[in-house]
């Protein structure tokens, strides 16, 4: 089948022959192509974030509460394991899925439910039958109360979305102030050698308002999202 690439590009170039008038309704000093004064102009206008780690963790906690994300700060691995065991016991979990990182493995050490590891692939039905998915992440975003994951940092695409409860384990060193910083991190980490095919900001448990605009959690993704933040 012939592709319309050349035709469409020709149409675009013909259309753009008429010089662009300045934007009819906007006159911003930081025009993107005009060499704006600030390196990240959006930072000046987006929601403000405190500079210290303490402020950022406090903001992340309050955003989590608003989003109905369950947020736990744990000083030790032992404390994190206790949080996990309590969740597993309350939910009567039989099987949980995870991928192998030092922190995920430490969290699941000696846990009661059986464990499915996705490191070398998995059967979809097997993953679907798990009670929870435990993953790491790229970073946390204080500004939005979100978690940034990628295929390598979260055991693939499906582990964090198919089971009904998603548990994220993160370190305080992974806290980033805002979305801009999260993108900077991704560029630094992967820009040279190729990005993962999948990057996602998760901001709260799955939700919908499609029935009478009333909020319901757990539309298709996880009904519950738990973030466990370990001290470095």
């Amino acid at each position, binding site marked *: 089948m012939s592709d319309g690439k050349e035709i469409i*590009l020709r149409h*675009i170039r013909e259309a*753009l022959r008429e010089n662009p008038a300045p934007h009819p309704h906007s006159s911003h000093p930081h025009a993107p192509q005009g060499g704006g004064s600030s390196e990240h102009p959006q930072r000046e206008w*987006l929601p*403000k974030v405190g500079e210290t780690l303490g402020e950022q963790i406090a903001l992340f906690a309050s955003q989590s509460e608003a989003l109905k994300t369950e947020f736990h700060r744990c000083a030790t691995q032992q404390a994190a394991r206790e949080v996990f065991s309590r969740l597993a016991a309350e939910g009567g979990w039989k099987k949980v899925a995870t991928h192998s990182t030092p922190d995920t493995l430490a969290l699941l050490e000696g846990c009661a439910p059986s464990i499915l590891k996705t490191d070398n692939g998995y059967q979809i039905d097997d993953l679907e039958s798990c009670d929870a998915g435990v993953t790491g992440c790229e970073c946390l975003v204080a500004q939005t109360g979100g978690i940034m994951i990628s295929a390598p940092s979260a055991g693939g695409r499906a582990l964090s*979305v198919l089971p009904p409860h998603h548990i994220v384990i993160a370190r305080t060193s992974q806290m980033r102030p805002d979305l801009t910083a999260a993108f900077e991190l991704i560029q630094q980490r992967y820009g040279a050698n190729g990005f993962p*095919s999948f990057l996602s900001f998760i901001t709260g448990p*799955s939700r919908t308002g*499609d029935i009478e*605009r009333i909020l319901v959690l757990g539309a298709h993704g996880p009904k519950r999202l738990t973030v466990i933040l370990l001290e470095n």
Partner: protein
Amino acid sequence: MTSIVAEFQRLARRYTADRQHRAFIQKGLSGYYQKRDAAKASFQSWEDARDLAAQTKYDAVNHLDQYLMEFTEKIEARGAKVFWASSAKEARDFILRVARENGVRSIIKSKTMTSEEIHLNDALEKEGYGVIESDLGEYIVQLRKEPPYHLVFPAMHLTRAQISELFQKELGSSPTDDPEELTMIARRAMRRKYCEADMGISGANFAVAETGMISITENEGNARLTTSLPRIHVALVGIEKVLPKLENLALFLPMLATAGAGQQMTCYNTMYGGPRQPDEIDGPEQMHIVLLDNRRTELLADAQQRDTLGCIRCGACLNVCPIFKNIGGYSYGTTYQGPIGSVITPHLRGLQEWKHLSSASSLCGACTEACPVKIDLHHHLLQNRRNAARMKAVPAEKISFLAFAWLMSHPPIYRMAVALGRIFEPLHRLVNGTALDPMRAWTKTRALPKLAPDSFHQQWKKHRGGKPS
């Protein structure tokens, strides 16, 4: 009058008269206003953010060829295939071919208005493919065999009782009026479909040139499942969706969330740059991007209205539009409802057939004020009116204006006409608004303004005569 106009008028009249419907839509939107204002207030400056967003999108659109090539090159280097479709038919045919060549049996879709624009589901179903819409609102309207009512809230016109009834009939579920239970019924119905589908079709909210990624915004997780489990991912992307840099998303994701649903950030914002890579454990084997023109380049060629291609389909202009709130989403008869639909549909589907939408506006400007990328919507509606009149003037309108101009430039005749008006005014009151009224088109829904007892001229003479200045 064409049948499109007649149908528009029929539906608009029906929905406007339906007070219950109007109240229901208003109630649905009232929660949105509150959340939107709170999310806006969290910005250091929403107005400056709008300016920056408008500039960024405008820059992208003004270098569209360059950014589309960069996007294509980057994402193809990572194993995705990009197909450039000039028309809706080319896009449909390509997707059908991918399905056929790969022996696809079942297809799952996440929400994409662009697929509504090209009537993709009809084409797939005609060829025997089962297609399931996975977004809850889309799934509900699909079961009802209706198009989306609103481009962001597809089923906002339905009550929980109607949805419960629908699920009982179509899914055999027990009756319930609990939105949570209804959502869980759909969740359970959909789970098997995700696991079994071999093709997932999505749209895209943005296409990032710098890194060759598409970005999809959603709350439910259905798009993530649609793009994770099936072995083929097809993304249908309008050519205007490009953003120059990855970092631009740091601005656009919160703005889309705020304007679209009154959230600071939508639940899932996912960037896909290719199919499963060699070192990854899951994801589709194939990723196809369909870049759709479908007359967008004609809109691009209109330098005056080029900024409309900056639209991020947030739906904010619908939510504040007094026309939308009265006539509802179905009266428009278009894929894109509300002010933005009224502006772009005449470009995408023909000015003469769709010019009536430009008049379905109070020109109040609420849409322009709500737009996160500062599209000058109400002025574009005026421009469409002017362009339609230039292209093909309505004879009756033309004659009326000629007559009016002649009358206004001949004072003695004007005075005579006013005098005649005074004579006929009391007689008109007898037939006002009835079938006998020659001015019924105006008077059946509006009061006729009263002629002043004395004209300005007469008053001037009288008062100035008494008190010379």
